[in-house]
């Protein structure tokens, strides 16, 4: 019960925050570009509407841009921004004098980040859907997609990317809880993201916890990299998430100064 009240309180703090705007705009950003492209070039996208793989193609286009750079970057920014709300507003001390356990505080803040991530995926998928049907919406002579909307495919794809994001969430959460300066989690996050993009071709690239989104994208395209063939990257992502979250929790609990 405490957790629910704490979660509600944490959720309220995100109202009008930069992180909330980031989720909203970030979720629709790539689908909006694809949507405009499909509407403008309707002569090309129109005939594709009846393709048996129409939805997979649209989703693939959206994920291509999202998975390699924007998704990890968005997760880095959103996680750091949400966690840093307390530092920015000088509010950690007030949070820590409320009658709630430290575990509840830790988990409710993490839960808010995860729910925002889900929100982001939901908006992104709605965006893909709108991008898919846009030519038919704008032009009466273009038929709606002939292919049934593949819920299963969308769920699986999003689920895998969600899993692959979790190490980023957990590590950014750990760093953001610990450092007051927003530039530290941001800098480390961007550094690791660049390292991940370099490491994807390395046979042991799966050791780098930020590589799983790109690996998943290549798998999705049927071009799995050597490293991601060697191991199940989703298990690795879950493992890293568990390790980072536990480490983060212990550091938080044993921190000498609480605001």
């Amino acid at each position: 019960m405490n957790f629910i009240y704490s979660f509600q309180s944490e959720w309220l703090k995100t109202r009008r925050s930069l992180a909330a705007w980031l989720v909203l705009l970030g979720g629709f950003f790539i689908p909006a570009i694809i949507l405009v492209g499909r509407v403008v070039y309707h002569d090309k996208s129109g005939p594709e509407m009846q393709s048996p793989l129409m939805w997979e193609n649209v989703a693939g286009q959206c994920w291509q841009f999202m998975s390699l750079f924007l998704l990890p970057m968005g997760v880095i920014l959103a996680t750091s921004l949400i966690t840093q709300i307390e530092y920015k507003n000088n509010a950690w001390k007030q949070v820590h004098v409320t009658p709630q356990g430290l575990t509840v505080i830790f988990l409710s803040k993490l839960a808010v980040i995860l729910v925002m991530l889900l929100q982001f995926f939901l908006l992104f998928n709605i965006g893909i859907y709108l991008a898919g049907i846009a030519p038919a919406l704008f032009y009466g002579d273009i038929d709606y997609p002939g292919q049934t909307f593949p819920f299963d495919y969308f769920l699986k794809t999003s689920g895998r990317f969600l899993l692959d994001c979790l190490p980023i969430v957990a590590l950014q959460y750990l760093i953001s809880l610990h450092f007051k300066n927003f530039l530290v989690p941001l800098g480390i996050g961007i550094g690791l993201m660049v390292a991940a993009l370099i490491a994807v071709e390395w046979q042991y690239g799966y050791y780098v916890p930020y590589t799983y989104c790109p690996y998943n994208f290549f798998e999705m395209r049927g071009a799995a990299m050597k490293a991601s063939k060697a191991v199940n990257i989703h298990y690795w992502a879950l493992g890293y998430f568990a390790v980072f979250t536990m480490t983060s929790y212990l550091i938080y609990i044993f921190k000498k100064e609480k605001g």
Partner: protein
Amino acid sequence: MHIIETNGLSHHFTKGRPILDQINLRVKEGSIYGFLGPNGAGKTTTLRLILGLLRKQQGEVLIFGKNFGKHRTEVLRRIGSLIESPSIYGQLTAAENLAVWQKIYRCPKNRIQEALRLVGLQDTGTKRAHQFSLGMKQRLAIAVALLHEPALLVLDEPTNGLDPGGIVEIREMLKRLNRDLGVTVLISSHLLPEIEKLATDVGIIHRGQLLFEGTLEALLERQRQVSRIAFETDDAPRTLQLLSDIGQAARHDGSSITIPAVEKQAIADLNRQLVEQGIGVHRIATMEDDLETIFMNLTGEGGLGSLRE
């Protein structure tokens, strides 16, 4: 009963001189306890230790008679606090800021407007907190502390940033809460006049040591004890000599010779003796020693100017 009791509370940040040294604080139920000391004396560190914001290194903290460490959430439920600068979410309105804490304390929603009214922020509407002046932010932080109707208020320099009118309002509000609702208030300040006008009990901390603790009356009595009589004459050296010869602890204080306060009749006798020795007496006055002088005496130095601003 003591609402707050610390026993042998000591703290150090790095090796060397402790920030706090064996602090034994006793805050009585229903009192307004003024925790006074110059900047850097250890006030905020003490309050942070009491509230569990700093991990305790040595000593014991009892609040409502319970060990704070063992009953943390239970104790915190009955405390409202404001430590240092206000904790305000800038992108939220005043009411939304209070709603954040209302959910955790699970107090009725109408408390939000009541708390805002108490601090005069009921008309801020949709204005975001980042647009508030420092004084308004301070008021909002006080509203956060009052939201759940706590039995104990711990306020660290709560009038920082307030204009004189705001200071009076907050002072009157704290008195009212204490008088009408029996709220115990622990308030720290480096401003002596503020504490003089508000507190029933006083603790004075300096360089991590609690130099005085007692009622304001006890402190004022101490003031009376240390007050002195000043003699301004046309021959200060001879006045000093004469007063010393007749057993008075006389000393030079600026242009005067002073002795510890004596009865009225004794003053007349001393005056007569001075005149009989041919010394012209221009003025005899009781030195109005204020609390600041007591602090100077307690701390053994004169560097406490920040106590009176």
